[in-house]
């Protein structure tokens, strides 16, 4: 009986995966768009159940309101404002069969991987004693032993980068995907060229003068937050967002024509790509070094471990840099600052120019 009881989560997992597969198939072949949205909401519900079973409650807390509530609501409003039926005569039968086959194959591969992980760790689901894990992290973070610690006195940064690097990486890439989406939507738009005139444009002289005084200090604080990310609370993302305040101040207090003297969209994209390359480099540099000198190493490795004895130095000339953390924070600062600069510049394109481009596309 107890065997049967311990099998329950596996059965629920399998049934949820199957049901979400069917819901995806129905959502794709359905011609009534409202019903398709409802099918996709059903699929999200089953995914939330799967996430809960795999013990990621933080993802579930975000996933339920967004994917089950907010997204279908927005989609239904959009469908009501436009057309209720797909006008392309439905999906052809061969396409629907291909979709069904590919979704089934994906589900089977995912299930196979779960079974393989079961064979390795003898357990699909993570240990229920999560507190033990947290205690281990906290005990090793400030224990200055290079084999166990990440040599950074800031516990949050150390844990996020050294134990949950993949998680951080994907969280970061979500924001970059959003910016890529904004760039793709605005690919035909450009900020119109116009001469900035101090006496006509922008807000009053009081605002301009105090902004000129405060702006260098904001940049200095932002750089200090980013470069001290491995020592104090903060880091690359927080520093980048602080620095992005300067761009929005330039746009709102002066004018977008004044801001484009310092931030051109193309240069911002270039700097953002450099930052992204730095993030990728800081994730893989130890693995690359290990590959070159022929020693075992991991992606996202920072300090040497027992089975992978190479790592970056944790200090240079007595200054603590915590291995890859300084490189990561610097690149993340650059990438986030330039990403937000691009967003602000795109948002400040005048409406007439946007309308011109849209009309030109339609006609």
């Amino acid at each position, binding site marked *: 009986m107890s065997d049967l009881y311990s099998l329950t989560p596996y059965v629920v997992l399998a049934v949820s995966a199957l049901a979400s597969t069917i819901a995806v198939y129905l959502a794709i072949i359905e011609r009534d768009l409202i019903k398709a949205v409802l099918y996709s909401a059903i699929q999200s519900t089953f995914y939330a159940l799967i996430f809960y079973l795999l013990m990621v409650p933080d993802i579930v807390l975000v996933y339920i309101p967004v994917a089950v509530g907010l997204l279908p609501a927005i989609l239904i409003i959009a469908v009501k404002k436009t057309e209720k039926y797909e006008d392309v005569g439905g999906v052809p039968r061969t396409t629907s069969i291909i979709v069904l086959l590919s979704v089934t194959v994906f589900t089977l591969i995912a299930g196979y991987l779960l079974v393989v992980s079961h064979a390795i760790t003898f357990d699909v689901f993570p240990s229920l004693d999560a507190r033990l894990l947290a205690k281990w992290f906290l005990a090793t973070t400030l224990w200055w032993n290079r084999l166990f610690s990440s040599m950074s006195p800031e516990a949050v940064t150390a844990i996020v980068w050294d134990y949950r690097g993949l998680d951080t990486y994907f969280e970061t890439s979500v924001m970059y995907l959003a910016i890529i989406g904004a760039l793709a939507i605005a690919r035909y738009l450009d900020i119109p060229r116009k001469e900035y005139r101090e006496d006509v444009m922008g*807000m*009053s002289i*009081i*605002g301009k003068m*105090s902004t000129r*005084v*405060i702006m260098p200090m904001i940049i200095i604080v932002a750089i200090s937050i980013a470069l001290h990310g491995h020592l104090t609370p903060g880091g690359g993302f927080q520093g980048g967002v602080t620095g992005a305040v300067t761009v929005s101040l330039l746009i709102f*207090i002066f004018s977008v024509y004044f801001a484009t003297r310092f931030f051109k969209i193309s240069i911002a994209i270039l700097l953002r790509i450099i930052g992204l390359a730095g993030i990728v480099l800081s994730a893989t540099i130890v693995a690359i070094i290990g590959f070159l000198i022929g020693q075992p190493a991991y992606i996202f490795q920072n300090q040497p471990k027992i089975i992978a004895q190479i790592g970056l130095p944790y200090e240079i000339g007595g200054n603590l840099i915590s291995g890859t953390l300084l490189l990561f924070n610097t690149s993340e600062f650059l990438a986030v600052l330039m990403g937000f600069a691009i967003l602000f510049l795109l948002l400040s394109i005048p409406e007439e120019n946007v309308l011109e481009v849209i009309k030109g596309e339609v006609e």
Partner: protein
Amino acid sequence: MNLLNPVLTIIGYVLVGIGAFCQVVAGIGMNRFPNFFVRLHAATICAIGGSFVPIIGCSLIALSIEEFGVIRFFLAGAGFVTAVFLLILAPVGSHLLAKAAYFSKAAVLYPKAVDLLEEDVERGEIRE
């Protein structure tokens, strides 16, 4: 320095008390004042009286605690710098808010006693 410490403490506590009083006054004003521009006045009381003054008070209190050692100078210095920036930037912010709200006509100027800015604009001395 020892003799000065109680004086600094008392002045600091008095300043913090003034700050608490200003916060309450600003809260009442925020709820009771009739339109945007007068409510902005209450917000400015909150920013200067309710934030600038107690931060100075906290810095003085931090200076007077000798157990902190050298750290107390860092605390007090950070407090003074923050207070000075608040003193410069809070009025600028409310000035820009008021100007933007006035010229975009986003806020209704209903119970109005006098509007000198309107007269200046009519005479052409100030550009919108």
